[in-house]
């Protein structure tokens, strides 16, 4: 007989502590859809996605019911569209975005990612065309997500791309200003982008991946916080142990769902992303875990250390629970998607500078941060460059997803709704990096020894 306490613990986690599977993401390679005629290529893309993913949503819904665990999002990631669009000379890649949107609606997924370009060492094929088309693509679609990889530990940072992305982020916000600038919330700029990431907005399927694959992202900040709240008098060794054990249980759910989805869809299982992904719901916040550990507010001195321990413990527990691990793996700190982060940002405890420090020790980077609408493009570029430098030097993924709140200033709010949440516009250092960004060129790849 299964232990009664174990049964009740699982049910409490799901019912009261917001344990869920954040996403089942089907990766679909579009390499076999390349055609010099863009209309033919779009037809092939549409047909392949609809044919391959037609059962994704119903199968996930069936698994949800049988196992009794919610699967919040069903998503698709595809080969970076800049690669597919390269064969279509001089065409506007937005046609691909519209095709992805149509396919996403047809199969009923929440998001489709891969309107992407990888330019860490330079631009090729349709890279420039695709990047220039991002604002339009994100304004005429609802489900399409876009990402651009501008740097890596092996290649360095493409500062020409960084300079361009400052303008693109700004323009994307401007063109969707009537919808709370939501376009920018669907655009992420990466350094060291993973090829098997199931999370949006940065999901795409790398060219080294199989034709079709199932990747799963788990959630569960609420469960970790509740476990810490129920324990008392633990020193930090004990806290790390408790987080590890809890992360193990959370990840086992992800592994089970990934295996079931893979079996029922007849698609290979790729990875489980060991993530603590918050939602704006009360009780599902990474910031609240840090506060439970003992900080008055997230952003206080000590936040980076607490987050480093949390992130490491989540990985240690999760690795043991899953046969294959990948993606972004770690604690996420998206400000507008986390009730505790929103509070901390509103009261001034959490600043962009502190968030930048936090990104050095946790998953991803400056995520879902509203900045003043009059922030110049070169400042956005410089934020991207700083963040990419942290990723490049530390051999980790970092990213920037900032939302210039057009027409708004510090203290005003943006509201996106759903998982994207909403929150205050945060202060940005306004001293100009114009000359630095205008120089362009490439920051060379860093040395990998003499680590100090």
């Amino acid at each position, binding site marked *: 007989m299964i232990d009664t306490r*174990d*049964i009740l613990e*699982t049910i409490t986690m799901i019912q009261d502590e917001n344990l869920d599977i954040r996403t089942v993401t089907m990766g679909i390679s579009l390499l076999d859809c390349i055609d010099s005629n863009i209309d033919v290529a779009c037809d092939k893309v549409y047909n392949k996605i609809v044919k391959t993913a037609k059962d994704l949503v119903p199968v996930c819904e069936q698994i949800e*019911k049988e196992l*009794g*665990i919610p699967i919040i999002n069903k998503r698709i990631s595809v080969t970076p569209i800049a690669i597919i669009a390269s064969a279509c000379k001089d065409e506007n890649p937005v046609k691909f975005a519209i095709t992805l949107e149509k396919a996403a609606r047809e199969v009923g997924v929440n998001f489709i990612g891969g309107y992407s370009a990888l330019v860490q060492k330079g631009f090729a094929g349709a890279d420039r065309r695709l990047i220039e088309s991002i604002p339009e693509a994100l304004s005429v679609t609802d489900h399409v997500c876009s990402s651009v990889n501008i740097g890596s530990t092996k290649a360095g940072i493409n500062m020409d791309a960084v300079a361009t992305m400052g303008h693109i982020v700004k323009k994307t916000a401007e063109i969707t200003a009537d919808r709370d600038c939501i376009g920018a919330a669907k655009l992420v700029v990466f350094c060291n982008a993973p090829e098997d990431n199931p999370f949006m907005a940065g999901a795409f399927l790398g060219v080294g991946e199989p034709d079709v694959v199932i990747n799963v992202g788990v959630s569960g900040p609420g469960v970790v916080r509740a476990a810490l709240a129920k324990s008392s008098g633990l020193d930090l060794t004990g806290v790390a142990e408790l987080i590890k054990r809890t992360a193990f249980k959370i990840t086992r759910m992800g592994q089970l769902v990934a295996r079931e989805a893979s079996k029922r869809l007849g698609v290979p299982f790729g990875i489980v992303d060991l993530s603590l992904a918050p939602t704006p719901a009360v009780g599902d916040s990474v910031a609240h875990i840090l506060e439970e550990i003992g900080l008055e507010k997230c952003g206080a001195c000590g936040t980076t250390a607490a987050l480093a321990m949390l992130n490491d413990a989540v990985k240690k527990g999760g690795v043991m629970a899953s046969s294959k691990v990948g993606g972004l793996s770690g604690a996420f700190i998206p400000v507008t998607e986390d009730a505790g982060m929103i509070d901390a940002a509103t009261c001034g405890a959490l600043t962009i500078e502190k968030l930048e420090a936090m990104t050095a020790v946790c998953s991803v980077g400056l995520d879902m941060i509203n900045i003043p609408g009059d922030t110049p493009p070169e400042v956005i570029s410089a934020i991207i460059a700083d963040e990419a430098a942290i990723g490049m030097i530390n051999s980790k993924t970092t990213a920037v997803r900032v939302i210039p709140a057009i027409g708004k200033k510090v203290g005003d709010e943006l509201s996106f709704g759903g998982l994207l949440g909403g929150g205050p516009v945060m202060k940005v250092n306004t001293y100009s990096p114009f000359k630095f960004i205008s120089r362009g060129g490439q920051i060379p790849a860093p040395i990998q020894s003499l680590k100090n």
Partner: protein
Amino acid sequence: MRAVITVVGKDTVGILAKVSTKCASYNVNVNEVSQTVLQEMFCMIMVCDISNISIDFGTFSDEMAKLGEEQGLSIHAMHEDIFNSMHKI
């Protein structure tokens, strides 16, 4: 294949009968029952064999949730895999 049904709510006459009648109507065999009453709160866990279940398990799970709503109880039918994978290595 086994499933775990949990019933939590205010103790009233015939809870066990109602849940097990529902199980029987879909050819679900109840293997083990454990129940406790804590300050009028009724908490029951049933482990059932669903190898010969006559409907789709997802629908069965919906039916159980519906029965719970009618009776003012919280009833969940979940596949045992979720408990095994979370608590056993």
